[in-house]
């Protein structure tokens, strides 16, 4: 018999703590799991009792406790709608910013909404695949990967800017390469850094155009290829000259430039990729079973109607517009073309 009751999200106890002074609702939310911790308290007492009865050594006690805790299933009906967002920029205060988005969605949807922070593109996809989160703000590539792993899931909204996203190639001033419309072939033979391995704008699309124009894999084209792991870090590394050329999300660059964090005498944009679709909200297909048949539509409406500039700044996007899976076919094809994803399932 398939057990219908869903287990509580274990991560509840693991949550990266909220900022003191973040909103009350989410504070309360993190304590709503009192049920499970009370349960554990009972287990603890029980264990101490039985352990005290049978074993005298502290080691034995700890062992018994360990055993019981490992097998203790924490049952609780799941009514919480959980979402995550890939770490993209300004990760440090993600929790603070996305808790506000959670509050907004909770008001609009009438169910409890929680945000879980993740550290990498892969962990966002895994959380989505394992139903730890039902909704995620993915990049182009991570969205394609996620929807492939979870049949029935849908891209429902994208940022206005994501229709025509783009990456910059940036170069250290010592290379003497200037900005051009043409692909800068002279980057061949230089040292080069991508961002994160799973990033659309920091890896996938730049690699695609590098292969297209220089007719070989980056490892063959460049003297050295690194993965900085992060857009901000790519900028820092190219600015310092540690890598001579790099690829970066255009939005992260523009934001950093506007914030005065870039020394234009040391690093500049030398090329912009053609436009491609990027970030999007993707929801699991099975939310209808749990939250009601019209849930996906209400969720989509809530996202499209989000107009509070403070909330939109979390992404940062002007507004959200409708999206669908087919929009991301080019991303899938590109990933398949460079071997990041298998063409056949």
């Amino acid at each position, binding site marked *: 018999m398939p057990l219908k009751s869903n287990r509580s999200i274990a991560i509840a*106890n693991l949550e990266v703590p909220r900022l003191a002074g973040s909103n009350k609702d989410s504070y309360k939310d993190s304590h709503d799991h009192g049920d499970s911790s009370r349960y554990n308290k009972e287990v603890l007492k029980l264990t101490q009792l039985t352990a005290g009865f049978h074993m005298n050594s502290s080691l034995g006690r700890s062992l018994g406790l360990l055993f019981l805790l490992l097998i203790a299933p924490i049952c609780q009906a799941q009514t919480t709608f959980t979402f995550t967002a890939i770490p993209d920029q300004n990760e440090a205060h993600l929790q603070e910013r996305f808790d506000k988005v959670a509050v907004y969605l909770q008001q609009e949807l009438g169910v409890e909404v929680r945000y879980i*922070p993740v550290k990498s593109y892969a962990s966002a996809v895994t959380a989505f695949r394992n139903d730890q989160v039902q909704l995620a703000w993915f990049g182009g590539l991570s969205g394609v*990967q996620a929807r492939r792993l979870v049949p029935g899931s849908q891209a429902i909204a994208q940022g206005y800017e994501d229709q025509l996203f783009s990456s910059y190639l940036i170069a250290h001033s010592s290379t003497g390469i200037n900005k051009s419309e043409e692909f800068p072939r002279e980057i061949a033979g230089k040292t080069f850094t991508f961002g994160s391995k799973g990033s659309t704008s920091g890896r996938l699309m730049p690699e695609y155009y590098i292969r297209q124009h220089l007719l070989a894999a980056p490892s063959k084209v460049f003297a050295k290829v690194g993965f900085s792991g992060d857009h901000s870090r790519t900028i820092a590394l190219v600015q310092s000259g540690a890598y001579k050329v790099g690829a970066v999300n255009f939005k992260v660059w523009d934001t950093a430039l506007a914030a005065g964090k870039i020394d234009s005498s040391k690093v500049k944009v030398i090329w912009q990729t053609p436009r491609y679709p990027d970030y999007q909200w993707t929801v699991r297909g099975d939310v209808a079973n749990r939250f009601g048949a019209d849930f996906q539509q209400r969720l989509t409406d809530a996202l499209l109607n989000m107009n509070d500039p403070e909330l939109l700044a979390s992404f940062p996007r002007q507004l959200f517009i409708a999206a669908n899976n087919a929009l991301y076919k080019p991303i899938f094809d590109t990933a398949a073309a460079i071997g990041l994803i298998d063409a056949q399932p």
Partner: protein
Amino acid sequence: MISASKSSHRDSSAKALRNTSFWFAAVALLCLSMADLDISTPNPWGELGLMAAGALSPTVWSWPTLLTSLANTFSFALQGIALASVVGFLMALGYRFTLVRAFCAFIRSIHELFWALLFIQIAGLSSLTGLLAIAIPYAGTLAKIYGELFEEVDPSAITNLPSHSHTGSLSRSLSRFCYTVLPLAWRSMATYTSYRFECAIRSSAILGFVGLPTIGFHLETTLSEGNYSEAAGFFYALLLLIATLRFWLQKRLLPLYLIGAFYYLPPQAQTSWQLVKRFISEDIVPAPLRGQANLNAESLGAFGQWFNQLWQHQIWPGLVNTMLLGQIVLVFTGLLALLLFPLNSPLFFRGWRGFGDAILILLRTLPEYLLAFLGLLIFGPSMVPAILALGIHNGAIIGHLVGRHTDELTLRADVGTGLNLYFYEVLPRIYRQFLAFLFYRWEVILRETAILGILGIATLGFYIDSAFEEFRFDRALILILASAMLNIGVDNFARWLRQRLHLKSMPESL
């Protein structure tokens, strides 16, 4: 000082030590000639200035965040070590069996981060994942330590038993073990386990890199954002936790801390058999064989091709790079350890030892990832930052251990001072011990080459990380098996060397 009274056996053994050291250095030099050691001269001062400014002006962005992530870091480490020492002890009982040894070498060859990535697939980003990611590789390590301690126990305790007690049932051999071997090994086991606890705290912190809410989560985030003041706040907190352990983590309070850790962070996960089944029956099955009801020539051919591709493009280059980097780092680590150990030795820095050890704690607590980034800024991308990062980290660890070992030395009244003391008295007497530590660290170094993706050095770990990033668990598994093979080979070789050189692996001080 090698005195004339030493037996010829000791002479030949000293020669063997010299020869071994020579060969290791020679191999490392050979590897150096093949390694990429380009130093490009970038302009790091801007970024280094920001880092220095941050280091000097640490800020705490949020105390609750800092304290909870510290508590999480501590809890994962303590739970992990507790579970690992129990399991490790059980496995150590069978350590004379090759199969058990290979199994232990296998589980500890996989970096904590990769264990975490594996468990995340099944148990999600949960406290159970954090516990197992530490407990499993540490169980492998502790089994090795305990097992070798048991082997090295003074055999007279057993041989003095009446002969009829040498045969008999399992319970009898168990009680024989408990009354002879265990008491003799116990003290070393306890001290070694407590030392591993410090390592477990570092491992626990690093688990934050994949998203578990330990201090590494915030450290990595703030570092990659270039937010160095906040990063310094988190780093100093971790440093303080490790540096003060000996003051508050006392033996009698241990059960209390342990219960506290389990109460604060009970291991649990939202998982189901479906997830486990999916992982085993789909995810890790090589792509060409997936969904095939039975094997036929065609699918086997496709598998052969798939494997061949993987071998040519990832496994072989990965093996070469891992070993190349590993050998260089090993010897550099050794040199650095010999240079650094006086910092933690009463023979050299009598009044300043606390300060000296503080430097070593600082050096070994700095995450390799951060050291690699620093090196990358200064030297540009090549193997140089990798060698420095891994060498400094591991050199400080071995330096600390060797320094502690010098506590045991009793010196003659007319012994020299300064360099004479170092070269003619202390170095020869600790050399055996030093080599034993270095061989222990060998496989750790190989494992740690995994986390240097920022430098683009294509080690096995680099490809394993890529495979996880691309959701190709089938590839990840094969690559993990390859690195496990390498580890088992290194383990056997180090064991052979240890026996040949009569190295005692554990000093009583450990």
